[in-house]
């Protein structure tokens, strides 16, 4: 009974090591990605700030659309 308990305890302690695959965890990337196109053919970032940050990195300009209503909802655009 005691040996069974020891084996169980040892295997529980080793479990995280066995589960480790040897790969380093992925670093969080600082590159913002467009979040959607809202039914258009343009890739939109979440906010003009995100678009500006990415534009600075990619040496691009910024395109901002100001709309009335909810752009995400075609009924209210």
């Amino acid at each position: 009974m005691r040996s069974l308990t020891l084996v169980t305890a040892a295997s529980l302690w080793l479990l995280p090591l066995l589960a480790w695959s040897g790969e380093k965890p992925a670093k969080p990337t600082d590159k913002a990605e467009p979040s959607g196109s809202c039914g258009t053919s343009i890739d939109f970032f979440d906010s003009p700030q995100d678009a500006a940050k990415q534009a600075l990195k990619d040496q691009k300009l910024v395109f901002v659309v100001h709309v009335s209503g909810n752009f995400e909802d075609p009924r209210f655009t």
Partner: protein
Amino acid sequence: MNALANEEVGKYLNEYYCSSFQKVATFKIVGGQKQGGNVAAYFCAPDGRVLHCVAGPVGGDVLLREAKWVVDSVKKTLADTKGDGAKFKAAWRTLHAQRLRDQYGLAVEAVTVDVTEQDPNSALTYKDPSGRPIAPKLPPPPIDGPDVTLQAKDLAKRQNEAANAPGAMPIGDRKGNRWVLGNDGRVHMLLAAHSLVKIEKVYGTVFENILNEKISTKPVEVLTPFPWVEKQRAARNLDGIDRSKK
């Protein structure tokens, strides 16, 4: 919306621009009909300073033409001014004044030096309930008059084009003469004095003075002017008995 769905426009904008959108106004839906609402597209430097603007809904060809004009002009002006920020701003405003002259035959003098900004923390600055200064209404530079190098026939032709442009409105010059300019003409006039300023300073003028639309954070209002009609219809459809008549 249609212009933004154009594949050629999308391909070009995705290649040269990082895009985003913001809600700045609202509209009403009354009895299924849309009332009010508008759109403005800004082409900006990565720091948020406005290079150009397309006010109001336009076709894909116009949006693409303006997007290309901005990219090509930025490249050329950067090369001409050799990276000098002040010279770039002056040259860019002069480009807008030149486009107004070429397209509509009206002359404005580009404002190449900015006046001192108002202190946003001053007690005299008018602020909205959230504490931010209200988007200012920027004055456009006055029209000096017609381009004197144009023949009367050419000027008349350009003014006819302006009269047929979306949002065409009469506008006076320094001498009291009346001319006409559409949305795009008035955008060039505004940006001949106020391009390369932050978008939050320009958008109020574009939306309220050029598009005549009120800036608002309210959600879209859906109004049904005669709600009892819908109720009567629903009552009739429920079991075939007209309950509205008693």
